[in-house]
């Protein structure tokens, strides 16, 4: 070992010792690991108005508290404003979040966004609505197709296997609505006595839905209705109540709101298929954090839906699900 080598080795030892000492006295010195609070998750919701999406946000906040991450929420002003949501989403990419939780209002419209996120290697967790127009790390939500089948099965049970029914769907359809409708149509095979006689379309507004349902009822007698979302369910229930047909015409709805629950109590509505948006929001963040840290994430997480009726709506388990916000 010559002199220069000795000096180099000595200097290396000294530097290593110095680094170790610094690190020993200042624990953050060598910390390469990302701190949880450094992880930012962008949550893009369909709306910040509706109960459903507020619950999603609550669940997300619970997860934020548990994992200690940083979360940003953006939402379209109007629930059906795919364009506006898309713009907000694109804008949020500029902040370079570590992961995105996306409850998209349209599949096709978000193709460029998913591509942009993939280009930036930002994992996207789809919640509520499954996305097929691009790459997502995971889907967390209800199996809407199965829920559609369940809705028809339930209605068939209510009608004792016989009757003419109609579907009240959202005008633009939406990702979930289409799947639910497909589930209903495919389940018709199992119930030969049930006939789908009408498809009613109405867009966002409750009164518009009422009117459309009224027209459908006028066109032909109906024994049962399946409405595919909150607004259409409420519209249909209001119309049935107005026509004093609530007992006669069985109505199966999707999602919940205080008004819908009120209708359920009044028996204007027989069953509601309710999701667990709180858990959806929670799991969305949980898996987004996992994805941001590069852990494996299940590609599809199916949330159990609950069939709510007048009897079980005040059960202990369901109270928190249906009335998440303490007011």
């Amino acid at each position, binding site marked *: 070992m010559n002199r220069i080598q000795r000096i180099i080795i000595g200097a290396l030892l000294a530097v290593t010792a110095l680094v170790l000492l610094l690190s020993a006295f200042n624990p953050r010195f060598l910390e390469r690991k990302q701190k949880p609070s450094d992880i930012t998750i962008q949550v893009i919701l369909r709306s910040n108005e509706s109960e459903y999406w507020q619950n999603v946000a609550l669940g997300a906040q*619970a997860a934020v508290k548990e994992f200690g991450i940083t979360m940003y929420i953006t939402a379209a002003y109007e629930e059906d404003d795919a364009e506006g949501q898309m713009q907000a989403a694109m804008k949020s990419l500029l902040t370079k979040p570590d992961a995105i939780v996306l409850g998209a209002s349209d599949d096709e419209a978000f193709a460029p966004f998913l591509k942009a996120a993939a280009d930036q290697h930002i994992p996207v967790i789809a919640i509520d609505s499954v996305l097929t127009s691009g790459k997502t790390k995971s889907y967390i939500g209800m199996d809407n197709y199965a829920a559609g089948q369940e809705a028809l099965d339930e209605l068939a049970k209510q009608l004792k296997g016989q009757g003419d029914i109609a579907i009240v769907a959202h005008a633009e359809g939406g990702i979930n609505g289409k799947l639910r409708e497909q589930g209903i149509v495919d389940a018709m095979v199992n119930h030969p006595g049930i006939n789908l006689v009408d498809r009613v379309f109405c867009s966002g507004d409750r009164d518009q839905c009422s009117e459309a349902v009224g027209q459908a009822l006028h066109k032909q007698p109906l024994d049962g209705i399946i409405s595919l979302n909150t607004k259409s369910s409420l519209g249909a229930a209001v119309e049935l109540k107005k026509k004093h047909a609530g007992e006669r015409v069985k109505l199966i709805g999707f999602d919940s709101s205080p008004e819908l629950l009120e209708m359920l109590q009044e028996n204007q509505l027989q069953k509601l298929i309710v999701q667990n948006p709180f858990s959806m929001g929670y799991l969305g963040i949980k898996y987004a954090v996992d994805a941001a840290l590069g852990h494996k994430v299940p590609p599809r997480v199916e949330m159990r839906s609950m069939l709510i009726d007048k009897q079980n709506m005040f059960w202990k388990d369901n109270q928190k699900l249906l009335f998440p916000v303490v007011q």
Partner: protein
Amino acid sequence: MRRGNSKSIQYILSISFILFSVFIIIVVSTVLYGRFAATAEENAFRNSQQIVDQVSYSLENNVQATSDLFNMMYHTISQSGDVDSDVLHRQLETMMSTRADTVSLAMFDDKGQLVMDLPDVAMKNSLDVTSESWFQSALDTPSHLSISLPHVQNLYMEQFRWVVSLSKSITIYHNGKPIQGVLLLDVNFNTIDELSDRVSLGEKGYVYILDESAGNIVYHPQLQLIYAGLKDENVELALKHTYGSYIDNTADATKIISVQTIGNVGWKVVGVSYKNEAMTSISELNRSMFQLLLALILIVVLLSSIVSRRISRPIKQLELSMKNVEHGNFEHAAVGEGPLEVKQLADRFNVMIGTIKKLMRQIVSEQESKRTYELEALQAQINPHFLYNTLNSVVRMVGMNKNEEVTTMITSLSKLFRISLGKGKSVITIADELEHARNYLVIQQMRFKNKFDFSIEAEDGVVSYATLKLIVQPLIENALVHGIEPSVDKGHIGVKAKLEGRDIVIEVKDNGLGMSEERLKQVIAGQVTSSKGSGVGVMNVQERIRLFYGLPYGLHFESELEEGTTVTIRFPAMELEQAEGRDQGE
């Protein structure tokens, strides 16, 4: 290092430094860690328990105040004659307004019919209170105030509010008739929710409220997740204890569970905090200790190698000097650097080398003087013998009246003695040496009755150089005795001094008998001892020249039978002072 299992100083020092410091650090960190861990755990327990105690205290107060309000209303209503009176309603409204969290007051008869309702809000059409738990429990246990779990109140139109219901059976006077009924006060849940939500038990810790009797969770920040099966709360430990903090090991992460019971409602406030969170400082300390340990080991390695190098390098240098001495090189003194001990060792070594050198010099000079004495003794031997012969010749010449020759002989003899005695010096000029040789030859020529003649030649400038004394005369004597005397012919002896390069060459040539090759070899080898002659052998001359000037110099013999012998003396040219200096210095 190389011998057997011996370890270098560096190795021994490093290893013992490292072992020692590691030992110290481990001891210190173990003690610190133990202390710290115990304190941290104690603190975590105390902190958790304190928070839970505070929450339960507030909650208990809240429940107590609400119960008090309820009781006050209860008495007011009981004592009033008519439940429909406006005065009573106003009184009750005032009482309600004293607390912000009261939602509604209602009274039902035992059939479930509404008797009174404050504030006056439309009831649900489908209302049937008889199936409600607060109604049943009030009737089942009269005169006992039932406090419900938080639930969504299902009484009013388009209202689904989370409330805690206080209910008690009551006897009232309605239209003058006493009837049995149930008084219901709904208190909103915000206070409990906020109270529990505000509490922080570390980053992830939380507080939940448990109903003692049924084990139901009254409040939990993640109740939905628990119902959805995404979370699990282990309530068993909390149910088992009424007070205190415990460790829950059932889940993946170890939790600290703190329990406090609220007496008046039979609820338990349970605080859950994560032990690893409370102990973060511990694991950080652990890590720091470990890093400190590593850093110290590195520093110790570095230091010990520097220190041991400083110690062992002078020792190695000393070893090198010793090796030099081993090989006979006494000139390089050991370097006296490094620690005191090594310096002292080097000094001692140097002193030792000095002594050895002095002893060696002493031996050399003793040897030399011994030889000089010997030579001087030998030199001294010639004189009486030669003197006897010469004086004999003088006597004979006096007898023959050869006065002139006697004068010459005695003059030569006296000159001979003057030079050979000198001033006790062994170095003289070549001129003196040649003069000496001439005097000798003159005396011998007379003794041998002109049996030979001689010639002495010297190159210019040669005569002033120095030479050893009495080196030519023995060679001439040799030539006379072995060359000229046995020969029948008249002989000739030639002495020639000249300069050859930096050397002085003195040649003594005779044309006597000469020597056979065999004999010449014996003479060169110094094996010939003569019975005749003065006794100062040719070899003595050889030895003296070599002793004085060094090895390459000395005598050279050339001889041929019947032709004669030539002996050449060769030595370096030196000025007299230089040669005298060397003579004295040696």
